[in-house]
């Protein structure tokens, strides 16, 4: 018998054996599982402002950040911008902190005279308040708080009120001599104008089932 014939014979026998092996009846059921995960998203909505002096602009407002710039603010005035952010995801999110990442634009001569207060509101509920002189924000830009301040439901909105107060400057006109602030005493406070720019970021995390 030639090798080819032998091979054919072996294959035929194996196929027959395979047939025998599968002779048992089988049945199966197919179950497909489709699992889609949620989305966590906080989006900037809009802003409103109240100005005693100068102007304000809000730029680079996307996701959970916004850059606020006050221009031409003068002493003894208070200016406020209110930023609104919305939970546009599909599950609640935990608001962990509100950070001021960058502060600049102002003159060091007035670093003690400008205060920035940041407050977080959800409806009537205030869940955060931070009040610092403007230069102190810069020093603490990386503060982080991972404890949940507020749980924002889907489509819920938070308001972040940024209140910038420029104190009355102690100049010759109103206080006479002031040795500590020589640079200011010869200046008429009506001539003083400052710019302040800062980035507000909402630090949030996904709702987690514990």
């Amino acid at each position: 018998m030639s090798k080819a014939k032998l091979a054919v014979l072996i294959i035929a026998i194996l196929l027959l054996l395979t047939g025998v092996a599968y002779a048992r009846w089988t049945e199966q059921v197919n179950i497909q599982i489709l699992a889609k995960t949620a989305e966590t998203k906080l989006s900037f909505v809009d802003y409103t402002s109240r100005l005693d002096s100068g102007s304000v602009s809000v730029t680079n407002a996307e996701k959970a950040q916004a850059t606020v710039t006050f221009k031409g603010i003068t002493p003894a005035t208070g200016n406020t911008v209110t930023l609104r952010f919305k939970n546009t995801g599909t599950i609640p999110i935990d608001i962990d902190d509100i950070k001021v990442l960058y502060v600049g634009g102002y003159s060091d001569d007035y670093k003690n005279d400008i205060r920035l207060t940041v407050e977080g509101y959800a409806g009537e509920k205030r869940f955060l308040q931070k009040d610092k002189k403007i230069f102190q924000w810069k020093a603490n830009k990386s503060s982080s708080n991972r404890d949940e301040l507020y749980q924002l439901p889907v489509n819920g909105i938070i308001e972040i009120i940024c209140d910038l107060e420029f104190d009355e400057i102690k100049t010759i006109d109103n206080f006479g001599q002031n040795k500590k602030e020589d640079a200011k005493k010869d200046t008429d406070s009506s001539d003083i104008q400052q710019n302040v720019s800062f980035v507000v970021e909402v630090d949030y995390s996904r709702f987690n089932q514990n």
Partner: protein
Amino acid sequence: MKKSKLIIIVAIVALLVVGGAYAAWTSRTTVSVNASSGEMDVAISATSVGKVSEYVVFAKNNITVSEDQKAATVSISNLYPGAEANATITITNTGTIPVKLSGCTQERISAVDTTTNKPLSATDASMLIVKYNATANTKTGQVKASDTSAAATATLFSTATMVIEAGQTISFDMQILLDKNAADSTENALYTFKFTPMFVQAN
């Protein structure tokens, strides 16, 4: 007529008479043998929804069964770390012979980020875990077995010896959960799994 010829005629006539007599005393009997084989068949007979974590979207109408009752699709959405959804699929032995669960396979068909359509990393893909509890009604009562896997492909219940008599059922409770340590990169992901219970004839 010669005597010999007469004898032959008589013999022939006698033989004909005997033949006729024999024919009169016999009859035909037909025995019919009907050998019908057993039938082996299983079908999805019931589905139900169990515990569902808050905000997870999963209800009875999110489980669909094919017309031939051989396939089911379980659709869950809005899963998040630590959240779970539970479903039960009941399979009935609709045949006439006992069937044995020979094992189950689990295959991850895909795990993709739906915003980019790109596959998730291996770590993220393994964050969806499915835990199975099987309960079979056998001759000796209920038999339970458990198995779990988050692997891309897995063979489950390979050591289970569950024989389901005709008309009896086996139920698979499936707990589908996203690992509580799942990273942000598992957001907006779609995991697609196939779970296949396989049966053989019991004998």
